């Protein structure tokens, strides 16, 4: 049964697949009001909502929390059912009534199960959050790590200036002659002296080769 969630393809952009029991609920009404097209599915395992970015959402309501620990089994099944390629998000109703249970719930969901937990105060707020999750897909994530520059020149210039006796000018002339850190490390004292003078050459050589232990 649980593996069914994987069989359902992620919805297209701007759409959200909801479990049928949510039809007519405040979440769905507010989602539709926010311009999200909601498609219903009868059976999705333990998933309540499926988003275009392949996120699965499990909704834990105030009632679930107050009624007792049954939802914990559901959470475990939720984690075990989905493959690691999908993002599993648990949306939790954190209201005045469920507030006291929140710390232990967070501990269970985030620390023990390693899932993402997002609190909302009610279904309207949940709809607002879900709609942003739907709409932000395909828009380009500002927080997504930009690919790191593979041009190390500026960083190596700064790195060499950490060596005692080496400033900007010497760092630059060292890299012009030796081009890489590895080559600089292989340079003998006379080679260094010709480039930066006796005192600095001594300092660089000592810094690189002296024992630290």
């Amino acid at each position, binding site marked *: 049964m649980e593996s069914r969630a994987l069989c359902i393809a992620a919805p297209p952009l701007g759409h959200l697949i909801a479990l049928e029991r949510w039809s007519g609920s405040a979440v769905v009404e507010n989602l539709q009001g926010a311009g999200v097209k909601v498609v219903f599915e009868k059976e999705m395992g333990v998933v309540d909502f499926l988003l275009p970015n392949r996120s699965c959402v499990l909704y834990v309501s105030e009632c679930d929390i107050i009624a007792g620990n049954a939802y914990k089994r559901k959470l475990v099944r939720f984690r075990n059912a989905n493959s690691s390629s999908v993002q599993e998000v648990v949306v939790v109703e954190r209201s005045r009534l469920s507030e006291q249970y929140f710390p232990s719930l*967070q501990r269970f969901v985030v620390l023990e199960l390693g899932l993402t937990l997002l609190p909302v105060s009610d279904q309207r707020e949940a709809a607002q959050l879900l709609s942003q999750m739907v709409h932000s897909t395909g828009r380009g994530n500002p927080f997504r790590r930009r690919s790191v520059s593979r041009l190390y020149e500026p960083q190596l*210039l700064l790195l060499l200036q950490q060596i005692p006796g080496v400033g900007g000018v010497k760092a630059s002339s060292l890299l012009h002659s030796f081009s890489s850190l590895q080559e600089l490390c292989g340079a003998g004292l006379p080679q260094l002296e010709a480039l930066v003078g006796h005192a600095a050459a001594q300092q660089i050589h000592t810094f690189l080769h002296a024992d630290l232990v």
Partner: protein
Amino acid sequence: TTTTITTPTNSSTTTAATVCILVDSRCISSSADLVSGLRQHHSVNVHVCSLDSNYFVLSNRMAAERHTLSELAAVQNRKRLVKRVNDLQGLFERACFIVEKDPTKPGEVGRSFQRTLFFEGTLASLVQAGVRLLWSDGVRDSARLLADLAQLEQRKGQAISVPLEVRGQHRQQALQFYLALPGVGYVHALHMVHNFVSVAQFITSSVEAIQKGGGMSRSRAEDTYRCIRYSCDSFLLNTSSAKKKR
């Protein structure tokens, strides 16, 4: 200069061996309550050092930073947040944000925080980018969460177990040198100072030796290895040193 603040274990509960958390020296003024809470109530070994920003290092691969709800909700903070996420994810495999309720001043009626669409969008993007979010009611809650996270990492064998003291001028200089390597954080640099006999030994090491000696992930070790062998282009050298002069 670095100082270690160790507190005697005063909790009667059967907690695992004391965990270590590195905090930036800036935290001492901005999060004094939190740091003392960590020491007193959670018997954490809090080590103060100077990191590149105001955050907590919880293990070899995890760091956490505190943000209030209103910080995340403010449009003008976006650029700074993006930089923080990028920097943290550059240095750590796991980056956490502890999202705290805004503190209320004594006598002030706590206004409930209004979640805006922008705020929800920020949450959605943070989750999508892989930032772990933890929700806190205040300083005491945050201290507990930090201690819990550090203990969890310890159970997974990722605890900071490298000696924290770096004695002697030469070693301090080596530490600063390692810290200036791209993608190398404070814990990695500590590992390197203690594990490599000399800077030259590090520079001539294989990827495996860097991974082991630096206590870092394979891909981070590969990046470091690439950086050591990177051959500088003299044209790019000139432009980057010219940029610095301006």
